[in-house]
């Protein structure tokens, strides 16, 4: 089974490599490949991340965490462990997610001062991730089947996709446009629009590095155009295919984070 999965991944990766050069015309295929490129690089991954959160009044906050991810299936379910190291009042907080495509995620939060493992209702994925301008969904990916996608432009550099929600009541946007790099298949810019067409929220990838063979967005900026606030997220010390075992995505790791796997090499 595992070999089959690996083989499938190789074929998918191979297809991605061969099609990237050629021009793609199927918007669903483009979006699915962009999703894989952004959120499913390698079988697993480790990265240190920090956020600079700036509100409309130029008040600044920071977050720093280490993120461990393991794919159950490419383009499908994933496991996440997010261990916070900054600021002081959330240091030691650990967030564990079993991401399920097409159904609600399982989420747990560990609060060290109370030694409390709290289970969190799946809830709205379009709410702030730890007080930043990024939503949960921006961190772990939005299901590609949740929107209708159309290819509205193909430039030398980008595929421009317009996506409209199948269930508009579940989201705050009317539609969004994504500029996907034809070379790397990474979404480089996403603009969220109101029904009037006004853009009120914009994500831009401002830095890309190729890590272990995978092009990786290492700096991204999310802007709230209404308030003027924004969040910059940087990823450093990223590694893929580190061989994270399944067992570290467990309650054990909430109370006692897996040092060996969190440590940078």
């Amino acid at each position, binding site marked *: 089974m595992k070999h089959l999965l690996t083989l499938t991944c190789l074929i998918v990766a191979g297809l991605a490599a061969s099609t990237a050069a050629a021009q793609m015309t199927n918007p669903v295929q483009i979006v699915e490949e962009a999703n894989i490129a952004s959120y499913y690089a390698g079988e697993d991954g480790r990265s*240190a991340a*920090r956020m*600079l*959160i*700036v*509100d409309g009044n*130029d*008040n*600044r*906050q*920071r977050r*720093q965490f*280490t993120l461990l991810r393991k794919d159950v299936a490419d383009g499908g379910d994933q496991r996440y462990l997010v*261990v916070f*190291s*900054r*600021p*002081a*009042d959330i*240091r030691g907080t650990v967030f564990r997610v*079993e991401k399920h495509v097409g159904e*609600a995620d*399982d989420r747990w939060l560990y609060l060290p*001062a*109370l*030694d*409390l*493992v709290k*289970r*969190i*209702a*799946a*809830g*709205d994925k*379009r*709410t*702030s991730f*730890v*007080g*930043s*301008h990024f939503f949960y969904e921006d961190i772990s990916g939005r299901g590609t089947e949740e929107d209708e996608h159309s290819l509205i432009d193909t430039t030398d550099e980008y595929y421009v996709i317009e996506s409209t929600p199948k269930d508009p009541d579940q989201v705050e946007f009317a539609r969004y446009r994504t500029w996907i790099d034809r070379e790397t298949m990474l979404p480089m810019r996403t603009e969220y629009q109101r029904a009037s067409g006004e853009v009120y929220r914009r994500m831009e990838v401002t830095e890309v590095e190729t890590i272990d063979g995978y092009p990786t967005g290492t700096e991204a900026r999310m802007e709230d155009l209404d308030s003027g*606030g924004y969040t910059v997220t940087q990823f*450093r010390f990223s590694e893929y295919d580190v061989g994270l075992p399944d*067992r570290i995505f*467990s*309650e*054990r790791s909430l*109370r*006692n984070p897996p*040092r060996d796997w*969190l*440590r*940078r090499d």
Partner: protein
Amino acid sequence: MTRRWPGWHRRGVLLGLLLMATATPLIAQDNAEADDPWGDEAWGEDPWAEEQTGWQWYGFIEGATATRIHDDPAVGDDYTLNEARLQLEAERALGDYTATIKGDVWIDGVEDGVRGDLREAALAGRLTDRIDINVGRQILTWGTGDLVFLNDLFPKDYVSFFSGRDDEYLKAPADALKLSWFGDVNVDVVWMPRAAPNRYITGERLSYFSVVEGRRVAAPPTIDPRERDSVGRDSEFALRVYQTIDGVEYAGYAYHGYDNQPSAVDPSTGEAYFPRLSSLGASLRRPILGGIGNLETAYYAGEDHGGKDPNLPNDQWRFLAGYENEPAPDFTLGWQYLLEWTRDHDALVNNLPASQRRYAPDEYRHLLTNRITWQLLRQDLTLSLFTFYSPSDADYYLRPRAIYRFSDQLTGTAGGNLFGGKDDWTFHTQLEDNSNVYLRLRYSF
């Protein structure tokens, strides 16, 4: 440790608040680092960065004041809380182990003096691939209830909880050895070599209802039960067996030790003490109807078989059902129903002196809770209300709260602990005169 410095400690609280006020310009300065907005520490504080050497230090200073909303004839003090607090935490990695020491020191304007509390002094780590160990003073929690505990018989500090301190102080530390085994099922075994009781209401900070006097009272005299502090002989054991299967969390629990409250009276001396208590229980938690549902039960078996001794608590069955969901973005709603079923209730009532019968617990005590949490301003502001309401006791306890994060360092909290009900002697109504509103300001570093 405790000394009397009349008047001085009140000023101490002000001093604490002033300290924080002077700390705020530092934050402004932090904002001014235009060249490198991340600050020069950059990635350095990431504890996984490299093998750490030496101790890492963290902590906060906090000023807190809570004022009674009506006069308490039993307690002379208008405040339930008035303190300036320093918490320091030191952490050090030692191979696969982490040593943690966390202690609080505060100037207490209610209990008059400087107080200290060692909250953690423990060594935790991986003993083998399958076994974790945590030895020393630590905070321990398990079970599925939200501010309601059935199988979690680790010590609580209700005095802090009711008087206006942060939620983290609801859990009191215990000296314990915790071994965790991870396999097809996971097992936690906790040994507390001497009993770890609650920090119960003694009458010093908060008044309570005395069934002997038939009215609300406070210290003096303080409740001063016989200690259970003989190392080894007064051991307590707690066990949890658990596993998560397809997103459903199953757990079984056992406890053998002492009641956390001094709930028994020695008839020969009139002295209160902590009677034996054993319990067995189980819980289940899973996603359901778009939210999280939980069920938990526990059977408490005490010393009083047959329930005939009015000086000992009777056995009890407890059942809990809860549900939490997020009906709107950043808005969560939680509901719980708790049943406390006192066994052999007739025997209990028949053996009480006639004058105390009315104070006996109901055979079935029903408790409903509700939690509303609303996060605004990108989670900088959290508004919440936790309500306890018992239809059988006809009493309530409201915990409204607003938390505002001024910055990563500075957090302000305003809230209340509001008690009331029909009969003076029920669990929440007896605390009515302790109803308070509080304000806390914390600077973390």
